[in-house]
């Protein structure tokens, strides 16, 4: 991610595609939810261990809230009408403070995902790893990427 000054900034966002056996999952980590104005969806709690294989991974994994940024997106108008761009970037530290500045104005922030549940998952995973109960397996199948001719399509909203 590049900010207005052309500086590279840490991107905190990402999308993961995962598969799993529904029947072995606990309802504590997989909940059917409904977001006002969005619709029905699933809230998933998932823990991913990051093997620190080299200095670069260590540097990225150690990034603090102050170093991780997210774009401010106008979901009211710009996003549904495919208008590119954003209203600037804010760090996770700013977001978690409860207030950010957008175009000089204070705007209240609220999270959508649970920090306390995330910590619970992280400590469970840590416990498994320390006890040697967490084992890595070979990937079942690799996911398609743009290199495989995979393209994403957007659905235009009416």
């Amino acid at each position, binding site marked *: 991610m590049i900010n207005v000054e052309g500086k590279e900034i840490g991107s905190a966002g990402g999308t993961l595609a995962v598969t799993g056996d529904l029947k072995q999952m606990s309802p504590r980590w997989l909940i059917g939810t*409904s977001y006002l104005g969005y619709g029905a*969806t699933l*809230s998933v709690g998932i823990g991913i261990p990051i093997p620190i294989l080299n200095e670069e991974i260590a540097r990225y994994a150690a990034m603090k809230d102050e170093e991780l940024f997210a774009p401010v997106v106008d979901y009211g108008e710009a996003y549904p009408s495919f208008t590119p761009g954003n209203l600037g970037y804010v760090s996770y530290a700013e977001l978690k403070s409860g207030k950010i500045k957008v175009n000089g104005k204070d705007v209240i922030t*609220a999270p*959508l995902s649970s920090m306390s549940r995330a910590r619970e998952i992280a400590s469970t995973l840590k416990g498994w790893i320390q006890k040697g109960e967490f084992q890595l397996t070979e990937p079942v199948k690799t996911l398609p990427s743009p290199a495989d001719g995979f393209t994403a399509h957007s659905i235009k909203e009416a």
Partner: protein
Amino acid sequence: MSPKRIVLRFGIDSTVKPIVYRLVKDYDLVVNIMRADVNPKKEGMMVLEVTGDRSEEGLDYLRNLGISVQDLNQGIVRNDEKCVMCGACTGICPTGALYMQRPSMEVGFDGDQCVVCLLCTKVCPMKAMEVHL
């Protein structure tokens, strides 16, 4: 004398009576209307904050009119089994009854601050905020 927050629910016939006026005039209460949904020829509700030595008498007067009187903090409860402390409600709650605790990022709920606006019941993706009548 600390203020008392109450929820009134009334039927079609009692909405025409000047109840707030009576509470002030006859029972010498300080009445603050926090929320009201009153329409002619419809059932209505009102959230009041009343202060005064004779508040119990005033509430009895309302009950005698057939109005249901309940303590406000009984109105909205958080189902702690369902709440995952995501925090979505904290951006919309107008009084700060639902709030982020920092730095733990856990969500607190202070029923005393709640004015039963019901916004959180619509916003909560887990449907954890429940109305108890």
